[in-house]
């Protein structure tokens, strides 16, 4: 996927001319990024129109709200939220991005039952039902939801029934979050 730098003028942003360089930020065009995620998740048109996308490192594209009235100094630690991991063969939306916009996804979103949800949050693999699998278009990243609320990212190994691992979903729930759930469950009953 191409990452295309753009200027503040390209995005109709009124920024101090030195700001992006001072803060070590690069504005990037939304088109290739969103084409990638929209193709996978079927987000509605216009969902990301009020955001600008910034490359802050070789790993991450961040999404931040317009009009981006950032300080010229001192150095900022972060702005907006992590949107896309780009340091991998197939860039993927981050957990925070999935949690923020995942409810709008129309494809490759898995609505789990309570047992699957618990396994996902414990970073255990889950096996999708045929009905869940029908809503996925193929191997790759999926949004994991429960009761319609997005919780994070999973990786679906295959949707081909001839494959041994068809419907097998690897949990990519952040380990730090999972650690917070030791000895309890999100549903209130003892684990």
């Amino acid at each position: 996927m191409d990452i295309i730098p753009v200027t503040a003028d390209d995005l109709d942003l009124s920024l101090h001319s030195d700001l992006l360089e001072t803060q070590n930020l690069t504005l990037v065009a939304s088109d290739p990024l969103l084409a990638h995620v929209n193709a996978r998740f079927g987000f509605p048109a216009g969902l990301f129109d009020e955001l600008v996308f910034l490359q802050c490192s070789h790993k991450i594209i961040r999404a931040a709200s317009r009009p981006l009235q950032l300080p010229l100094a001192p150095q900022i630690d972060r702005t907006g939220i992590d949107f896309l991991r780009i340091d991998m063969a197939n860039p993927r939306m981050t957990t925070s991005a999935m949690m923020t916009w995942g409810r709008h996804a129309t494809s490759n979103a898995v609505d789990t039952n309570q047992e699957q949800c618990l396994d996902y949050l414990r970073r255990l693999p889950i096996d999708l039902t045929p009905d869940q699998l029908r809503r996925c278009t193929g191997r790759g990243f999926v949004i994991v939801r429960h009761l319609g609320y997005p919780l994070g990212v999973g990786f679906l190994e295959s949707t081909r029934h001839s494959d041994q691992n068809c419907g097998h979903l690897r949990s990519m729930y952040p380990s730090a979050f999972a650690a917070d759930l030791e000895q309890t469950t999100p549903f209130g009953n003892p684990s």
Partner: protein
Amino acid sequence: MNDAHPFARYRSIIPRWDDFQRALDRPLPTCVWANPLKITPPELEAHLREQGITFEPVGWRPGAYRLQGVARPGSRLAYLAGLYEIQEEVSLLPVELLDLSAGQRILDLCAAPGSKTAQIATTVGPRATIVANDRNFRRMRPLGRSLDRLGITNTTMMTADGTNLPGDIGKFDRILVDVPCSCEGTSRKNPDATAATEDDFARLCSVQRALLKRALELCRVGGRVVYSTCTYAPEENEAIVDSILQEFGSRYHLVPARLPGFAASSGLVTWRGEHFDPQLKDALRVYPHQHDTGGFFVAALQKSSD
């Protein structure tokens, strides 16, 4: 009731002292608020009912709820999905007094651990810009996680000394100065919190004053600065605001720190023989027995000229 009580020095200013003492012995209720970026209050209420969670709406703050009998609210599905944020009820006050509106540029000068920043960011809408600062990088980490969990895209984090922020940071329409303090008002959740000492005042008051002074300098004319602490000590509250008014009184004035449905106590105009600017009656003191919360102090200052 006796003078050995840790907060006996405030007996003359705290109404219904016996009720105050009894309140300190009760556990603090858990308060959460619906994240408007992800869910409406009625939807959250329905979800909590479905999950078997008993709750009571906070009357003075729409969308906030006291949860009952929930041992670990930070492990519940609604929290993990970013549907609610946990924040002590009384600490919702200063943000409510910022008089927020869309498009503003807002600074949270002492932001860690960040619940008030999240409250600002979700209240003011996506087209505002919030700059959350704290000099303690480690204490800012929870804010980063909260922004991710709640889906907040309008906030920028930085780690700098708030008393010494450069002019290049720009001017702000609203500034929250929730200063480090002796935390007396947190004794219901932190039993180690006890009455402030002269050593505390020596350590804290100069920093508190410097933070408020810098905030006022960074505020646009017509803008508002809200100063808050979670302590009862007038030395950290009225005396700080009074010293600023004495030095720069022509540029700033207090606006009444009052919210409909939230009756508490006025700020002090005298303390141990010291007289403060009469405007300080417009500050707000909250004692734990008044709303079954922690203790708090808030003053709201409007900037009329540079």
